[in-house]
C-alpha cells in the first residue's frame, strides 16, 4: 500500500472518528439552536430575545 493511500486511510479514520464523536455528543456546526450570550433577567429569563422573524 502506497504512502498516499496510507495518508488517505488515516484521513478517513480521522473524519469517521470525528463524525462518531460529533454524533455521540450531538454536535453540529449547522445546528439551529445557540447558547444565548445576552443579558438575562431574574430566574435566567433571557431579555431581548431576538432571532429571525418571518417578513
Amino acid at each position: 500500500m502506497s504512502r498516499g493511500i496510507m495518508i488517505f486511510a488515516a484521513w478517513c479514520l480521522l473524519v469517521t472518528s470525528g463524525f462518531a464523536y460529533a454524533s455521540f455528543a450531538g454536535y453540529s456546526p449547522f445546528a439551529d439552536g445557540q447558547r444565548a450570550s445576552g443579558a438575562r433577567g431574574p430566574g435566567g429569563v433571557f431579555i431581548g430575545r431576538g432571532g429571525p422573524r418571518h417578513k
Partner: protein
Amino acid sequence: MPPEPPDSDRPNPWGAGESGAAGPTSPRTVVTAEGDKAAAAEQFNCPNCGGSIEIKAAGYTVTVACQYCGSTLDVTDPDVRIIQRYEEEVRKLDLPLGSRGKLRGIEWEVIGYMRRSENGTYPWDEYLLFNPYYGYRFLDTDGRGWTLGRQLTEMPAKNGLLGFTVDGEFYEPFYAQTRNQVDFVLGEFYWQVQVGEEALTADYVRPGKMLSWESSKHETEWTLGELLEPNEVPDAFGVEPLTGGGLPLPHQPSPYKKQSGQMMKIAGLAAAAIILFAIMFGGTSDPETTRVNLATNGVEQSAKIGPIELTRPRQAVTVSARAPGIDNAWIDLAYTLTDRDTGDVYEASNVVEHYSGYDAEGNWTEGSRSSSSKFSMVPAGTYDLTVDAAGSQWLEGQYAATRNAVVEVSIARGATFYSNIILALIVVFVPAIWVWIRHLSFESRRKSDSDFAGDDDDDD
C-alpha cells in the same frame, strides 16, 4: 568483441571496445559458441568499406547493415552481396550495437537497429536484441518509454469485431492499419531489411502491453510488447533515461487507476461507518408535546414544556413544530431552552407556514406546515422550554387565510444532523473523486491518440 572502424572520424555505434583483427580482404571466419544450441559468431569484411563485421547470430542472420558505412549486406550470399549502399554518415545510437544488458533476468546483446516512421512522421527506434539461448527480442522506443517485444509463434485469437486475445488477455484496437517504412538500418537481422522497405502495421493494446501486427510483401507477423519500467533500460544498458513528455503511450497503464480504486474502497468503508454511526447515535427519543392556540393577528402566545431531564454530559435536542390547519398564514416560533440550575439559555427560532392558490398554471402551494430546530451539545441538566408563537395572515393575497391556528410543539432528546453526514461524506469522497478524475483524464489523453477514439482528427 566490437571491431575497430576503418575511418576514425565516423561515430562508432558499437561502442568503445577492443579492435577486431579482420582486414578488408580477410575471408569469413566462424567462431564456435560454447553451447551446442547457441548460435556461432562469424567475422568478415564489408565489401563496400572494408570494415570488419562480426555477426553475432551466424546461421540465423540474413541481413547486416555495416556499422561503418551503413551499407546493407546479404550475408546468405557466400560473397556477401551489397543490397543497398548508404550515403549518409552512420548515426550514433542510444543503445550502441554490441552493448549488453540484463532485462527481466536475461542478458541481451544489441545486434540491430532500425529507424522507422510513417512516411517520415511518428518515427520510432527499433533495436534487435539477441541471446544465443533465448533468441531475439525487439526493444522499441519513440522517446516516451521502452517496450520489450517478442514475436508470437501463433496468431492471436480474434475477439469481437476488432479486438484480439493472447493468453486469455483481451487487446483492444488502438492504431488502425498504417503504412510505414524503414528510414535507417544498422547491424544484423534475421530477415531481409533495407532502407525504404515498407510494411503495414496495426496495434492493439491493454494496460502495459501492446500487440502489433505487421505485414510486408514477404511475411505477416505478430509481436507482443511489454512496457518496461522507465529505469529498466537505463539500469540494464547504462544509458540516460528517456525524457518522455507529450501524450501517454498507447499501452501505458494509468498511474492513478490502482490508487483510485483503493481510495474509492476506503472511502466506501468510511461512508458505511459514517452511516452506521448516524443510525447508532442519531434519532430522537422521549418527546414531550404542548399545544398553542392562537389567532393569526400577530399577537404572541406563550407555552412552556418542562421539566426536561438531559442526562448525558452533552447531547442534541430537537424541537419540532406542526400546524396542520394553517393556510395562507404563518406562525413565527421562538424557543428558549433554560437550564433551571445554571440559568444558561439556548435559543432558536423557526416558522411554520403554508400558502396556496390558483393561477393560470393551476393550483399551487408553498411552504411547510411543520419545521424542526436542533440544539447542539446541550449540557446535562433540568431544562424548561419556552415557546413564543405569533400567527399572521397573508393579507395581500386574494385567497382566504386561516384566522385561528393550533401549533403543536414537541421537544425530544437527540437529533440527526443530516448536514453532518453530508459534510463527512464530502470530506471523505472528495480526495477519492479527485484521483478518479485524474485517472479519467489520463485515460482520455491516452486514448486521444487512438484511431478508434471516436474523434477522427488525424490525416495522412
